[in-house]
C-alpha cells in the first residue's frame, strides 16, 4: 500500500538488520531538518532503536537492566537510560556486528586524562544522512553557493576526527568550486588562507569559513603578527561556522570578543557567524539558528556568550539533576543528556558532563561541569599515581 510521506507507518524501522534499520533512518533524515516531526515519531523511533540496542549491545543491555530499563518496561523515550560519555573511553560500544564497523572516531583526549573516547561507527552513510540536512538547514537555507574555506583538517589528514569527516561530507555535497583545506592537526596554512580569501574577494565569491574557536584564535594571532593592517572584505553572503570550546588550550577568549575580532578582520557581520555544538560521541549536531538574521544589538555580548542551540528533529536533550538524574524544568540548569537517533549503531542516549538548560525549543549551553577536586588529608589519586609510577 503506497501512502503519502506523512504516513507514520512508513517510518517504522525495518529491524531485520542494522543495514535495513540504518537505511530506514537515513531516508527519514533526508526529508529534512527544517521542519518539526509529527508528534510521536521521535518517540516511536527512539523506542525501536532502544529495543535494537538492547538486543545487540550486551554492555548496554546489562547497563539498562541494572537501571531497571528493558524494552518491556520503558514506556517513553525519556526513560531510556543514558550512558556516561566517559564510557566511550573504556569500552567499545557497538549495537551490531563489530567487524562491520566502518570507521572509529576518536576524541582529542582531554576529558578525564589521557584516555581517548572512541565512537565506533557501523555505517558512515547514516552519519552523512544525519549531518547533511542539519548543516544545510542551518547554514544554507538561502541556497547560497559558498566556497568552503576550512581551518579544520581534512579527513585524510585526520581520519579519526568526526569533525573533519563532517566538514568533508558537507564540502563534497555543498562546496562551490575552489573549496579547500587550510590546516593540518599541527599547523595552520596562514599564507594559503590569505590567498584563498583574497581570491574570493576579487572574484566576489562568497565563502563559508569553518573552524574551531581554537583555530580561529590561533589564526587571529598569526594575522596580528603578520601586520595589523591585514583585513578582508568578504563578499556578501559569506558566513562563518565556529565549533567547539577551547578545551583548555590557547587563551580563553569570550565568544563575543572572538566574533568581534573576526568581524573586524573579515568584514563580516557578526550575525553571519554561528556556533555548532557536537561531540565525537554523537553523530548529530546542534546549531545556533538564524544565520544572517540575528539582529546586532548592544547586548550581543551576553547573548553570544550564552548560546542558544537547536537540534534537528531526530535529536533531543534533557537537562538532568546532577545528583538524582531527574529531569529539570525549563530554565533550570543541569547535566545534559542527549538522545540521538543517528547513534542507532552505538548508544543513542548519552549523559555528558556539560551543563545547560532548556529555553523554548532550544538548548542554552553553559559549559563543562568542573571536575572533582581532591580534598582532605587523603592523598590525591593523581599524586598517588605519580608516586606509584615513580617506583
Amino acid at each position, binding site marked *: 500500500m503506497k501512502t503519502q510521506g506523512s504516513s507514520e507507518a512508513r517510518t517504522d524501522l525495518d529491524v531485520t538488520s542494522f543495514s535495513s534499520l540504518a537505511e530506514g533512518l537515513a531516508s527519514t533524515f533526508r526529508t529534512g531538518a527544517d521542519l518539526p516531526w509529527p508528534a510521536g515519531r521521535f518517540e516511536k523511533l527512539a523506542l525501536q532503536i532502544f529495543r535494537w540496542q538492547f538486543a545487540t549491545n550486551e554492555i548496554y543491555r546489562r547497563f539498562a537492566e541494572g537501571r531497571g530499563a528493558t524494552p518491556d518496561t520503558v514506556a517513553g523515550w525519556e526513560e531510556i537510560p543514558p550512558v*556516561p560519555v566517559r564510557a566511550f573511553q*573504556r569500552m567499545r560500544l557497538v549495537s551490531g556486528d563489530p567487524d562491520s564497523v566502518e570507521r572509529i572516531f576518536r576524541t582529542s583526549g582531554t576529558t578525564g586524562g589521557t584516555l581517548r573516547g572512541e565512537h565506533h561507527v557501523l555505517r558512515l552513510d547514516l552519519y552523512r544522512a544525519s549531518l547533511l540536512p542539519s548543516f544545510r538547514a542551518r547554514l544554507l537555507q538561502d541556497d547560497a553557493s559558498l566556497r568552503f574555506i576550512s581551518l579544520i583538517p581534512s579527513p585524510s589528514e585526520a581520519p579519526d576526527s568526526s569533525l573533519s569527516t563532517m566538514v568533508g561530507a558537507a564540502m563534497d555535497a555543498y562546496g562551490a568550486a575552489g573549496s579547500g583545506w587550510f590546516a593540518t592537526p599541527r599547523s595552520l596554512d596562514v599564507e594559503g588562507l590569505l590567498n584563498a580569501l583574497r581570491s574570493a574577494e576579487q572574484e566576489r565569491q562568497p565563502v563559508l569559513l569553518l573552524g574551531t574557536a581554537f583555530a580561529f584564535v590561533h589564526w587571529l594571532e598569526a594575522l596580528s603578527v603578520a601586520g595589523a593592517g591585514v583585513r578582508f572584505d568578504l563578499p556578501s553572503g559569506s558566513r562563518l561556522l565556529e565549533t567547539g570550546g577551547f578545551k583548555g588550550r590557547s587563551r580563553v577568549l569570550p565568544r563575543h570578543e572572538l566574533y568581534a575580532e573576526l568581524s573586524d578582520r573579515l568584514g563580516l557581520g557578526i550575525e553571519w557567524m554561528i556556533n555548532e555544538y557536537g561531540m565525537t560521541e554523537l553523530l548529530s549536531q546542534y546549531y545556533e539558528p538564524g544565520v544572517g538574521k540575528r539582529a546586532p544589538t548592544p547586548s550581543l555580548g551576553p547573548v553570544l556568550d550564552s548560546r542558544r542551540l537547536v537540534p534537528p528533529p531526530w535529536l533531543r536533550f534533557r537537562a538532568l539533576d*546532577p545528583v538524582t538524574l531527574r529531569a529539570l524544568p525549563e530554565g533550570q540548569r543541569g547535566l545534559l543528556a542527549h538522545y540521538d537517533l543517528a547513534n542507532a549503531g552505538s548508544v543513542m542516549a548519552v549523559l555528558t558532563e556539560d551543563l545547560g538548560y532548556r529555553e523554548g525549543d532550544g538548548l542554552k549551553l553553559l559549559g563543562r561541569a568542573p571536575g572533582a577536586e581532591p580534598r*582532605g588529608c587523603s*592523598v590525591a589519586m593523581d599524586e598517588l599515581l605519580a608516586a606509584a609510577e615513580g617506583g
Partner: protein
Amino acid sequence: MSPRRFQAWFLPAPLTYVGGVEVFERGHELEIEVPLLSEDSARSLVAHLRRARTALLERPAREIARALGAAGARLLDPQDELRREALEVLPASARLSGPMARAVLDGMAADWSATRLLALLDAELHGGAALDGFLSDATGRRKRALAPALNVHVCAGTVPGVSVTSLVRALLTKSAVLLKPGSGDEVLPVLFCRALAGIDPLVAAAVAVVYWKGGSDEPLERTSLPEADLLVVYGGDEAVTRARAAARATTPVVAYPHRLGIAVMGTAAMDSTTPGTRSASGPAERGSALERSATAAARAVALFDQRGCVSPHVFFVLGDENQAAAFAARLAEALRVIEGQLPAAPLEEGEASTLQQLRGTAEMESAVGGGRVWSGGAASWTVLLGARIELVTWPGRVARVVPVGSVEAVLQALGRFRRHLQTVAVAGLAPATLELLSEGLARLGAARIAPLESAPWPPPWWHHDGLGPLSALVRWTDSEEGGR
C-alpha cells in the same frame, strides 16, 4: 538571608588587626574574613611571638597542658556558647553535614583534654619534667628537651581540628607558634585560641592563627617561613615541597604528607554466622562478625567524609571472590545505614557530574570484566568490588574491595604506595597472620596498624607518621658529666 561572617584569625594580645580583609565564600551561608597583613605587620607579629615564648619557658609543662585542656573542654561542653558557635559554623566551613561536624569535633577535641595531654607528656617527655629543666633519666644521663622558639605550622586539608592538634603540640613543648590552618579548618583553631586567651593569657600570647591561601605569596608567608625555627607542614606533595623550599636549609621540617588509608580483612571477619547457629548461607545475621566488621568499615569510611589521613579507601579481603563479594554487599548496606546517621556533605555540581560518569562507567565495565558496583543512588557512597585498584579521584565516599590470596599479595599490591602509607586497619586476622602482615607493613614504612573499630581515632601518643608527635618537635640537650 545574608551569609554569616567569620573572622579567620587570632592574634595574641595586645596585637589587634585593623587593616583590610579578603573575604572567601564557603557555600552560600558563610563567608570567612582573612586579614591582609603587610610585611611590617608580619615582622612585628613574628617578633612578638618570639618574645612571648620566653615567658612560656618559665611555665611548667603540666600547667600548660592543663590550660590547653581547659580550652579544649569548652569545645566539648554542650552549655558553652563557644561549642555552639563551632557547631553552627563548622558545617559550612568544612563542608560536612551537621551530625558529621559534631562527631568530628567530639572526636578531635577528645585529644585536647588535660588528661590526654598529660598522658602524652608521660609517654614521650618524662611527664613534662624534661621540658622544664635538666633531669637525670634511669641510666643516669642528664638531659633536657627543648623545642625551638618559633614554630610555623602550615596546614592543608579540610579535616577540622587537625590544626588545633598541631598548635597544641607546639605550645605543649613550649614553642611559640604561627599557624596557618587548612582551607576548611579555619574555625576551630580560632575558637580554641579565643578560649585559651580567656583561661591563660600568657600561653595564648605565644600563638597566632592566620588563614591565608597557601602558595599565594602573601607577605606573612614570605616573611614567616624563613623565620621559622621549625616548620610543620601538612599537605599534598606540592604543598610540602613548596614549604620546604621557603624555609632555610637549616630549618628542621616535620612533614605530614597526605596518606592512603588501607584495611586488611581476614576470614574471621567474614563469618556471617552468630554463635549458636549453624546456617552459613543467606544474609548476615545480627551480631555476626561480618555485620560487625561491615559496620565498623562503613564507619571508618564515613568519618571525616573519608578525607582523613586515617580513612580507609581500599579493603583487601584475604579470601576468595565470594567472600569479598559478601563483604562488599554487607559494606554497601552498612554505608546506606550510616548515611542516615552521619550524612555526607552534599556534592557540588561538578562532583555530582563526575560521580555519575565514574559510577556509570564502572557499572558498564563490571558487565564485561567482572567486578561489581553498589551505588547509593542519590546518596554519594559507592562500593566497588574488583581485582584492580583504580587510581581516580572519586567524589563521595567510596570503598574499593579487593580479594587477595595471601599476606604476600597484600604487601605486593601496597609496595608502590609505600611512600603514602600510614594507617592500616585490620579485622579478623589470626595472630600469626597479623604478625606476618605487621612485619611486612613495618618494612614498607606504614606507621600504624590498628583494629578497624578504632582506626579513625588514633590514641594521642601514636607515632604520627612514625614519630612521636612531641618528639618530632623537640631537641635533646645532654649534659655530660666529666669522666665515665
